[in-house]
């Protein structure tokens, strides 16, 4: 146990060190971008003095070093500064949009990994059959087709022609939620969630499906499977309890990394379905030269990916007791 704690401790120190480097790179990156932010903040028809005034108010006339130290000090206190565009704290803007993205990404992930893990195992078991080939082909088609195109087609078929699902947004126009709970857990919201979940889900599906299938094929050639067979265990028990569990490791890594990057959302999914999430906000922030929002989102993204990596490492020992932390 103490080994585990010292492992977590060492990894946390490493993470902090990496974050400082990332923050520095992000800070410099946005300032090296061509064009300055005052162009996006103010109407071009505004006088030069008014523009100058705004530049001073946001401290953009100060030296790069002073701006950098202010920025780093802010991060420690979880303060990323005021958004140039919204004139509100950047972190508030992001937290406001985060739930929408997380709900969509998690449902899409459950969809993709649920089908992927069981489907992958099943496909390996039925290796060489027509059904397996079809499964691989379908997964690869959805992986390769541009998501926005699949999205537009899905909207056209299910919203415009069939009228089963709403075409975009998270809620119907004028929907009034009585409680915060209702904002995300209502029939209206679920109806809006289904289409983007499926479109995102079929796109993500190929990764867990194919990883699972490939590792399963390896596992199935190992001795303990032979033994299980020799013991006379039913096929289903061998497949899911013995083989699948051992084939899960790489899928868990992929899944953990997926959660980390999911915070950035699927920009194209959010764009096609007008989903008011974080992914679009990040793109807009970069376009608007809204440094505080862009910096905050990239740093949070980096931190989350690193954190999820750590979680995946820890989860390994649960799945495979042979792994220890030295």
């Amino acid at each position, binding site marked *: 146990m103490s080994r585990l704690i010292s492992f977590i401790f060492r990894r946390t120190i490493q993470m902090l060190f990496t974050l400082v480097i990332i923050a520095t790179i992000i800070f410099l990156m946005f300032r090296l971008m061509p064009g300055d*932010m005052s162009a996006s903040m103010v109407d*071009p028809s505004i006088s030069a003095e008014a523009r100058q005034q705004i530049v001073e108010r946001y401290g953009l006339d100060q030296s790069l070093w002073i701006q950098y130290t202010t920025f780093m000090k802010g991060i420690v206190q979880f303060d990323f500064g005021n958004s140039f*565009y919204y004139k509100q704290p950047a972190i508030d803007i992001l937290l406001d949009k985060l739930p929408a993205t997380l709900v969509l990404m998690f449902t899409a992930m459950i969809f993709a990994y649920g089908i992927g893990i069981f489907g992958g195992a099943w496909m390996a078991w039925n290796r060489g059959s027509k059904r397996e080939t079809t499964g691989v082909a379908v997964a690869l088609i959805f992986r390769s087709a541009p998501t926005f195109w699949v999205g537009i087609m899905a909207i056209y078929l299910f919203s415009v022609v069939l009228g089963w699902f709403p075409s975009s947004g998270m809620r119907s126009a004028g929907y009034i939620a009585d409680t915060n709970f209702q904002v995300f857990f209502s029939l209206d919201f679920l109806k809006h969630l289904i289409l983007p979940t499926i479109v995102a889900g079929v796109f993500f599906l190929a990764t867990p499906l194919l990883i699972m299938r490939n590792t399963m094929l390896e596992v199935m050639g190992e001795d303990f499977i032979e033994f299980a067979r020799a013991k006379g265990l039913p096929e289903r028990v061998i497949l899911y309890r013995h083989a699948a569990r051992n084939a899960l490791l790489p899928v868990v890594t992929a899944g953990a990394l997926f959660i980390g990057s999911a915070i950035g959302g699927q920009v194209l999914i959010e764009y096609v379905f007008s989903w008011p999430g974080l992914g*679009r906000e990040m793109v807009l922030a970069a376009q608007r030269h809204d440094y505080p929002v862009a910096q905050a989102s990239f740093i949070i993204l980096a931190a989350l990916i690193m954190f999820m990596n750590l979680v995946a490492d820890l989860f390994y020992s649960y799945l495979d007791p042979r792994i220890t932390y030295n």
Partner: protein
Amino acid sequence: MKIVKWFVLFISIALILGACSSNSDSNSDPDSSGEVTEHGESVPEVRIFSSLPEANQVNYEAAKMIETEWEALGVSVDNRPTEFNTLVSIIYGDDHDYDAYTIGWGGRVDRIDPDMFIHSIFHSSNAGPGGNNTTGFMNDEYDVLADAQREEMDPAARQSLVHQAQEILAVEAPLLTLYSRLLVHAYNNERFTNMTIMAGEGMYNEWTPVRAEPLTDDKMLRIGSQFDLDTVNPVGANSTYEWRNMRLIYDKLVRLNPEIEVEPAAAESWDVVDDNTVDVKIRPGMLFHDGVPVTAEDVKFTYDYFIDWEIAYFMSFLEVIESVELMDEDTVRFNLKRPYAPLINVTFAQIPIIPKHIWENIVEEEGLAHPDEYLNEEAIGSGPFKLEQWRRGEELRTSTNRDFYEDIKIDGFIYRIYAQPEAVMTALETGDIDMNAEQFIPAHIQRAEEVSHLNVLEAGDIGYQYLSFNMRKPPFDDFAFRQAIAHTIDYDLILDAHLQGYGLAGGAGLVISPQNEFWFNANVDRPQFDPEKARQILSEAGYTWDDEGKLRFPLQ
């Protein structure tokens, strides 16, 4: 049938190729007179900053057309499609490091007044870094006219000055308008009627929600937009998109009606005492959304507040105001630094009246650096609609202000935000929204016309997209060179090929749209597309072409 189609396609391709090759033949020997000509210096390579195709496809294509024409004329071109914010910072930058650029001015309602397009963007006093005269046009005769129209309070006399200014612009060609769009909108004819469309504003103007009549029991007007709002704070709003919503929540002294005439709003009447003094009488009995009466004091407070805090978005309309005085219970006097014709139809029509009892101490109470940081969740105004809820990135919902001095038929409006034009079009088709806030892209116009529950309305734009130059350095500092260049833009082709005809063709110095009937000067001759004429003008001005067909300046 199919064979015929392919045949036509084949023939047209053959013709186009043929036309191209014959063109290059005639250009290859411009100096075939046999005599040895002495040449001046080479015309330097010209850098055009244009748009990225995803930001503005038409400008991107137009810049490519322009590049081809200028290369054919013997001018080397470095065409650089540029991201919008970068483009703006280049043309507003300190060092004026560009030769030509394409960009546009939006058709905001305050730009129906000619001051912005005549004075701001061409007066020599604005030619410095950050100034709106990015072209660097400096013309004494023009400056006199631009100043005079601003101070002329008599509309007829002002009209004549604005007309003269347009004549100079057509000849000097400091800017070539490439095109302006047609504003085409659609609404659900099964749910609403009596929609208003205005030149420059389209259907989401301040009259549509006030005058629309519901045909069903659901009286909520749902408007679909592709632009997110950044704030519901009228002091912090800095784009047209916020403004279109804010002005329905906050009342102003006057409104411009669909015929673009000034109508009283919160002001019952006004009296021009002399050229520098205007008295405004406040309409009695108005209430803010929280039930507090609107008084002359609120009006004075509003103007003082906007001026004291130097609210950048409105500063150009306000800097002329010397002071605002409270004359009696319901009269406010505006003292001006100098006569300013746009005071009533621009300034009064723009500034939102904010309640003194809310804003007076907001900065101290909330610990803000500037009132534009105030969240203003309640958004208490005195306009025709009350803010009910704003969900960032999703929608803004209002209810009708039943105390408002006009009879409004709808129960309120919902402004829904979509990520892209396709989503707005789909929402119109499925009936999720009742109208679109921004005009259709050309591809959607026909689609909308085929939907039986949609009625399509159109109006002209008063904004425009243009090509302009840096007149501070060669070659665009030369009058003859600009004259020739004015003949190299195929305005009709841009309109037909890239806007599918949904717009108006551009022209040299065409800054006042023909849609803006009162101020537009219809009696101006503008250069037409004619590359041969361009060569002739250059030739007459002493320009020559060297052996490689490159353009040379006249010998000094």
